[in-house]
């Protein structure tokens, strides 16, 4: 067994990532509600009607597919928020939903969308029970970004926001759990300034009383901040994070289940924090253990106790370390990181995907005379909430589409990657131009099916230009740009070589042409060419087989145009037409297009 060993000293782990602090802020507490005791009603109302037409070359021969689909829904989410006193708050959301075309109770559903309670005990300990949004670090509990979106045009935002609302995506990479959490902090007089403790436990899936056991997740974070040190006021922030996912084999009749424990140490060493420049060393490192445990009834020494055998065990490590600088006066933030995530590193609560590519599409799932399954494209990724998941903590890595995300399909915690990553953004206050850049040059650590290693390159850039303020037009006019380039390559013999390239470009324009009336224009296009192997996996993330080369030479585009009238900031009506076309050079006769016209009214109150 060839074993590659990197000795990473403890000092390496004393640097570590700033994301934990961001994640910690993600979970709000009662102090957000500054209003006093009482009962309040908030909520959201939405009406959506659409008609989609199927077209393109495919229809020249397709005599079986329906050419037009129309549907819609009317949704009212009524939030009842009660604060019996200033330290206790409960909230429930009742959803009333009616399918477009449902009458006299048919198609109408009433459900509880959300329930939670939170408060403060003895003015010291914060707690929350019920539904909660939770994140720790990108390697423990984290929801990676969705595929197919860089900086989408404003015209595509309304449908994307529907998906995010429906799936509880907060924009802070939090996961939606149902359970409980407890947070508190400690203040010190010497060396350590503060120590914060967070803990949580949640149920990810219930048992079906047969072959599916109850799956639970628990863990938390212990974070500390040092007092300022030395003449520069350097300050260290350290955190220990734990995320454990396990199946309760006493529930149901399942006799085997998952055990996944991830323990990490993250931190930031703020070396300099002056008026013009801030500089820090950041990083995170840790280890995962993934096991499949089998419960043997009466397998204990006395024959009466149950015993658990470990059927499969994998263990691996990761680390990420880098330097970050903030040029405060120019609004430039930049960070350079080295990452090393082991091939067997498995963190089910951080490596899942928002999109489940194995799910059926809501519209035109099968097309053509042979009723072939239609693959998910930009059209579907931008609106089909059925593709998106809320909790996909599974026993192995889920499927991905290399055309959309081949470099980091599972986000920062993607296993089997090492290399450098450059993050930079330009966000000066009150500036009309803002932008961001991500460059990642990575390589596999372990070859798949060969000793040869794949090389990955990722460039992701985005920019927003407030044309209205730049030209002093007095109206909200903005342009947006998003760009992603991905390259995957590998040398070797003719059966080992890999070469896959993908481009994703987004442009958008939003112009207020009359008071609160916006014209929205946008385009998104992707093209991919080349080939790669997409492995079939087993045992968490081991390669079981390669079904064949994944060969692609396809492109797709999504164009959108429409009007939006903003009654208030949280209330708008938009009417749009979006046109989608897909073409594959290998099968030109199967090229197709989709045209969708829709009206969406959204009201938050």
């Amino acid at each position, binding site marked *: *067994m060839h*074993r590659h060993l990197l000795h990473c000293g403890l000092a390496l782990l004393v640097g570590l990532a700033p994301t934990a602090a961001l994640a910690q802020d993600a979970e709000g507490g009662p102090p957000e509600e500054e209003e006093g005791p009482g009962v309040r009603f908030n909520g959201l109302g939405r009406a959506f009607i659409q008609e989609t037409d199927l077209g393109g070359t495919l229809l020249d021969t397709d005599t079986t597919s329906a050419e037009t689909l129309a549907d819609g829904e009317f949704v009212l989410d009524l939030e009842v928020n009660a604060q019996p006193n200033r330290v206790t708050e409960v909230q429930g959301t009742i959803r009333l939903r009616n399918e477009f075309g449902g009458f006299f109770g048919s198609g109408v559903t009433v459900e509880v969308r959300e329930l939670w309670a939170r408060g403060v005990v003895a003015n010291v300990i914060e707690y929350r029970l019920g539904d909660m949004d939770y994140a720790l670090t990108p390697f423990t509990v984290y929801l990676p970004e969705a595929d197919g979106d860089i900086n989408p045009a404003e015209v595509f935002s309304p449908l994307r926001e529907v998906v995010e609302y429906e799936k509880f995506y907060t924009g802070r990479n939090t996961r939606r759990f149902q359970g409980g959490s407890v947070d508190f902090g400690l203040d010190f007089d010497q060396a350590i300034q503060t120590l914060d403790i967070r803990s949580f436990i949640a149920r990810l899936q219930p048992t079906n009383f047969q072959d599916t056991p109850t799956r639970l997740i628990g863990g938390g974070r212990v974070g500390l901040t040092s007092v300022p040190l030395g003449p520069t006021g350097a300050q260290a922030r350290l955190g220990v994070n734990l995320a454990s996912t396990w199946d309760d084999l006493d529930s149901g009749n399942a006799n085997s289940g998952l055990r996944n424990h991830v323990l990490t140490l993250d931190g930031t060493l703020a070396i300099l924090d002056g008026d013009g420049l801030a500089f820090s060393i950041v990083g995170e490192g840790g280890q995962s253990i993934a096991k499949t445990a089998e419960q043997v009834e009466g397998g204990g020494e006395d024959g009466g106790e149950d015993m658990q055998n470990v059927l499969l065990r994998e263990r691996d490590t990761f680390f990420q370390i880098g330097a970050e600088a903030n040029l405060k006066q120019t609004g430039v933030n930049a960070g350079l990181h080295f990452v090393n995530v082991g*091939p067997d590193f498995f963190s089910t609560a951080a490596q899942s995907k928002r999109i489940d590519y194995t799910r059926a599409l809501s519209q035109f799932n099968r097309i053509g005379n042979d009723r072939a399954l239609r693959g998910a494209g930009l059209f579907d990724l931008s609106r089909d909430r059925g593709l998106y998941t809320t909790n996909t903590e599974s026993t192995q890595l889920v499927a991905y589409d290399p055309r959309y995300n081949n470099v980091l399909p599972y986000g920062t915690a993607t296993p089997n990657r090492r290399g450098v990553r450059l993050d930079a953004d330009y966000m000066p206050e009150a500036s009309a131009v803002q932008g961001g850049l991500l460059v990642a040059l990575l390589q596999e650590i372990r070859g798949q*099916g060969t000793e040869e290693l794949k090389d990955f390159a990722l460039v992701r850039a985005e920019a927003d230009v407030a044309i209205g303020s730049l030209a002093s037009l007095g109206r909200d006019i903005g342009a947006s740009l998003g760009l992603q380039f991905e390259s995957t390559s590998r040398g070797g013999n003719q059966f080992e070589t890999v070469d896959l390239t993908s481009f994703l470009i987004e442009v958008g324009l939003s112009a207020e042409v009359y008071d609160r009336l916006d014209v929205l224009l946008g385009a998104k296009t992707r093209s991919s060419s080349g080939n790669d192997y997409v492995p079939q996996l087993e045992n968490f993330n081991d390669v079981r087989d390669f079904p064949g080369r994944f060969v692609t030479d396809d492109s797709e585009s999504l164009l959108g145009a429409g009007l939006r009238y903003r009654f208030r900031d949280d209330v708008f009506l938009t009417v749009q037409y979006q046109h989608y076309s897909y073409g594959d050079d290998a099968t030109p006769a199967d090229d197709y297009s989709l045209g969708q016209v829709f009206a969406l009214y959204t009201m938050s109150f």
Partner: protein
Amino acid sequence: MPRFSTFPRSVLAVGLVLAAGLSGCDHFTDPDGPNLTDRFGPFQLVEAVAADRATVDFAGGESVVFTAQFNKQTTWVLEIVGQESGAVRRIEGFSRELNADNARWSGRTTELPFFRPEDVVATLSFPDEPDANETTTQVSVQSARTYPGNVVTGFEQGDPGDIFLGNFEFDFDLSVTGVRTDPPAAEGNAFYRLRGTDATLNNFFVGLVRVTSQNANGYFTVPTAIPEDLYLNAFLRNFDAENTIIILEVVVDANGNGRFDNNDSIIGSGDIRLSEPGWTAFSRPISEFGLDEAQAQQIVAIRAVLISDNSAQPTPREPVDFGIDYITFTAGAPLEL
């Protein structure tokens, strides 16, 4: 966030201990998954299929290990065919070699009939390699595998006194009906064939064959008395007579006289229609016949009834026809081929 004003220093110590445990960053770097060159490169047969013995005594507990080697992992199919019985044993795998772990044959069959003492030819083929040639080897079976269970009859002893043909309406074609050896039996050399035409009375009934116990107490010996675990097995032969209906019946001694008579309880299987060509294995727990534990130990006869589906018959009616062989009782599961 609200804060305590005290300082448990032990919390800091725990954090440092945890940090020390995280100081390694080693990974396993052996290539993951099947070798790509093996998986998708050209196929070459390195070593042709061979058997580790020329003769085998399955009844004595012996088995045959087939070996072969190729230059890559691929899907392979080893098909062993009896030269007299036509029995087929198929072993499939995905690997770069055949060995004792994946290509051991202990005399079982995949497609009926059972193997007999006979020569067999084993052919190795590669369905995913269109340019690969088949390779063969030969083994001589000295004795066939012994299967578990209590045999009611295999019809090997001709037409002895325990076998009764009920030709009550003279519908049977007696030139064909009876113990036969051609086509090959499912087990051994002989089976029982029933062929006839419901021409006398329009009552769907053609006739039956009844096998009675020759044990001293009049009851068949069964491997278990638990009805849910006691399986009645038989091999049934389809002769492409499409209007044929078969009913297997269990006869229980209702009056306790220890022998078959017309007052006994006769419990049928329900209609059985054969759709697959050749021999088919039939298995059903006695509990599904409705027998209790006491009745399971008082089975005095097994009957196979030939029915003509006159509702579907053309005019004039065509013969109906089936074969039956190797009636057995097994415990715990259907007879495993």
